[in-house]
């Protein structure tokens, strides 16, 4: 799976869970500061990402994944 595929899959998840339009979910965006996504929504996004990509993102890892690119990189390494 390419980084671009992971990004578009992640954008779909973010749109569904947090109501942020998928085209606004771009690599440089910070979840908290730019997309207004809080820690609980991040947990939901992590669970959905696990279902979609088969890569577990543990709670203790989540706080280090600040930008969209951070999550793409984490998933990309695990796929």
């Amino acid at each position, binding site marked *: 799976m390419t980084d671009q595929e992971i990004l578009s899959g992640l954008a779909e998840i973010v749109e*569904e*869970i947090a109501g942020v339009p998928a085209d606004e979910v771009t690599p440089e965006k910070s979840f908290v500061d730019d997309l207004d996504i*809080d*820690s*609980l929504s991040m*947990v*939901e996004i*992590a*669970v959905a990402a696990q279902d979609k990509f088969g890569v577990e993102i543990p*709670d203790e890892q989540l706080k280090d994944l600040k930008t969209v690119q951070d999550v793409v990189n984490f998933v990309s390494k695990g796929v």
Partner: protein
Amino acid sequence: MAATLRRGERSIPPYSPIGSRILAFGGYQPDQVVTNDDLARRVDTNDEWIRSRVGIESRRVAGPEESVTDMATVAGGKALAASGLSPADIDLVVVATCSTILPMPSVAAVAASRLGIIAPGAYDLNAACAGFCYALAAVSDSLKAGSARNALVIGAEKMTDWLDWDDRSTCIIFADGAGAAVVAAVPDGVPADSAGPRGDERSRPPSTPGRFIGIGPVVWGSAGDQGNKIQVTSRTGAITQDGQGVFRWATSLHPVALQACERAGISPADLTAFIPHQANLRIIEALARKLGIPRERVADDIVHAGNTSSASVPLALSRMAEQGRLESGTPALLMGFGAGLSYAAQVITLP
């Protein structure tokens, strides 16, 4: 002893019930309202944060002299009055609770006695926030087995007895209250496709033509290996919770809900109401979204009741009944989850 004999003297002819159903709900909340601003004066939190992360605007707290048994009795009495049955008709009382300070006597036996119910089978059950759904399942099975005819099921909690008011991760969540349901065996001879005397045939969703669920099979389970996610570790201690871990677990329980629908022979689209444990509005919304259940069909009692553990499901049901939000004769999904960890879900036909 006299009471025992009185029960024993009754002649109870053998019969084979074919099912069970809920006749009525009742609820009780203490008078004292605690707002988010009240809590913000004590701990470092604020109204906006609590509303956005938990969904609670205010909660009710019992007075120092008000016990779990007191609250259970009031809620049970209301459900009994709404059911049209008399205390003499009830022969089983089960109370779900995880917050009593004193382990004996049981809340159920004392509350039953106060309600004038003579010598019923009576016991308490602890499955924490899943307690009401566990109790409803146990009672339903007792009724179907012929072990009782009419039962009172109560969830009652004084969670504030186990709160550290300086712990901002828990004191904003938990609250006190009680809720109850009167449950009856559906005796042999009542047609299986009858929604009961209070059911409205026309209001059934088209996909469940003439199908009577009553109280559907429970889907229940536990995860004791994660018991430390919500716990009290000493007699004088308080509830501690791994909020993020519990959130992750609870928002992933939608397969349990789907299975409960499947076992009842319906699809989530057939549900006219979804009443999950009122733990956190964000958990409720996540589950509803995953199940595709529209917002207006979902209980949101937590906003003004807080998290009352095993009381939350029947308390929400009793309020929805008062508000005319429950459609008689149609299927609703109940779901409890919490400490244990434990969970339970079942579909009921609304009274």
